[in-house]
């Protein structure tokens, strides 16, 4: 499924993986997360600190409230940290709600809050905003980029959305179809915060162009 994938992330770097559907992006994340042990190779993490992961589906415990879901994975979380995390993600009003009472967008945010609550050394995002409407996805993306800025999170992002990638990533890895390998790594040199909307458009186009160049038949 994957073949000859090798890369290293700097501390605080955000790497995005883009590739055709079913090429093994999720599998790669699962291997890094330690969920898939059927592979040859090596995953090294400098300091084996906490891992935060946002799955494609929120994967919250339906029988625990929002607050309990977050606290469960981060028992040492102080009331203040929790409060500020929830308010940054605009979840204050939903603390006592059960996941079944939340919309998908809200559940996604809770899932993000949970991943951030563990103060991760490495954050894994598996298409975190897929199947949300454009406007909501854009808002969540802004919130996420703000959170990543203040925390200097080393992040691995898997996404189909090139604009999302252009906004959030420091480096973009293009993957080939199965067996996936890294075709090219595109550094996005302008610091994430300093990117204007125009630059984002240019970067999106640039990434799209690269994709077209390396894997022509895969572009819709």
């Amino acid at each position: 499924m994957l073949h000859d994938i090798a890369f290293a992330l700097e501390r605080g770097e955000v790497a995005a993986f883009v590739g055709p559907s079913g090429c093994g992006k999720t599998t790669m994340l699962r291997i890094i997360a330690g969920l898939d042990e059927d592979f040859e190779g090596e995953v090294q993490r400098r300091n084996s600190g906490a891992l935060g992961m946002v799955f494609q589906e929120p994967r919250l415990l339906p029988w625990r409230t929002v607050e309990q879901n977050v606290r469960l994975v981060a028992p040492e979380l102080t009331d203040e940290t929790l409060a500020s995390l929830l308010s940054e993600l605009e979840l204050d009003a939903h603390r006592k709600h059960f996941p079944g009472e939340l919309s998908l967008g809200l559940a996604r945010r809770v899932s993000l809050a949970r991943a951030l609550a563990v103060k991760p050394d490495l954050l894994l995002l598996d298409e975190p905003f897929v199947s949300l409407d454009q406007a909501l996805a854009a808002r969540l993306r802004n919130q996420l980029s703000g959170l990543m800025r203040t925390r200097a999170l080393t992040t691995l992002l898997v996404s189909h959305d090139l604009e999302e990638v252009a906004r959030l990533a420091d480096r973009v890895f293009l993957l080939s179809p199965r067996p996936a390998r890294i075709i090219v790594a595109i550094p996005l040199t302008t610091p994430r915060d300093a990117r204007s909307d125009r630059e984002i458009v240019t970067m999106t186009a640039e990434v799209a162009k690269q994709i077209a160049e390396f894997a022509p038949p895969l572009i819709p």
Partner: protein
Amino acid sequence: MVRFVSLILFLVVWWLASLFVGPQMLPGPEKVLAVVVAQARTGELFFQIGVTLARVFVAFALAMVAGTALGFIMGRRKLADSLGDPWLIVLLNLPALVIIVLAFIWGGLTEVAGVLAVAINKLPNTIVTVREGARALDPRLDEMAKVFGLAPWKTLRHVILPQLAPYIAAAARSGLSLVWKIVLIVELLGRPNGVGFEIGTAFQLFDVTRILAYALAFVVVILAIETVVVQPIERRASRWRTKAA
């Protein structure tokens, strides 16, 4: 309301039937109630019911704890399932009476043998139900627990047990009624007290009134437990479901 009417109807049918077949065969509700009151006055009723209840709870608890643990392991591990399944089929098809008689022969007419016999009767049923639950556990939540490094007991308490809860509740529901019926047979065959022993004595005297008095009193007790203990627990455990948007 409908339930109440239905209950009244039951009493009327009982009363008419007793007129028809005669009080020797089927005493009317008022006669049975009189015996219940008389037995309650002497304290006999409470003692016998108390003894039986104690046996019911010990056997029930044993079967639920052991059955849940075994069912969980069998649902999760293929090897345990393959190993345990033939035993389970044997146990499921062994008549309650055979288990009880063998327990008394091997263990003597003792309390331990009696209670164990009841627990073993209930055990396979709990295992089968909980095994279904363990097979239906959501692997995605398991992965979540693993990624976030939840301690095993935390995973058990917050991730696994809530998913098993409906299955455990189902096993407990059917368990309570099954266990008390088997306890009565155990008491009839090999204990010197309890509701089953009383009914056995009444049987030898063909005292139908007393048989019905004890049976009725015990049904009321079990109903009360069901209403006051089992249902509130179920409501609490499923409160996250009811409010779903």
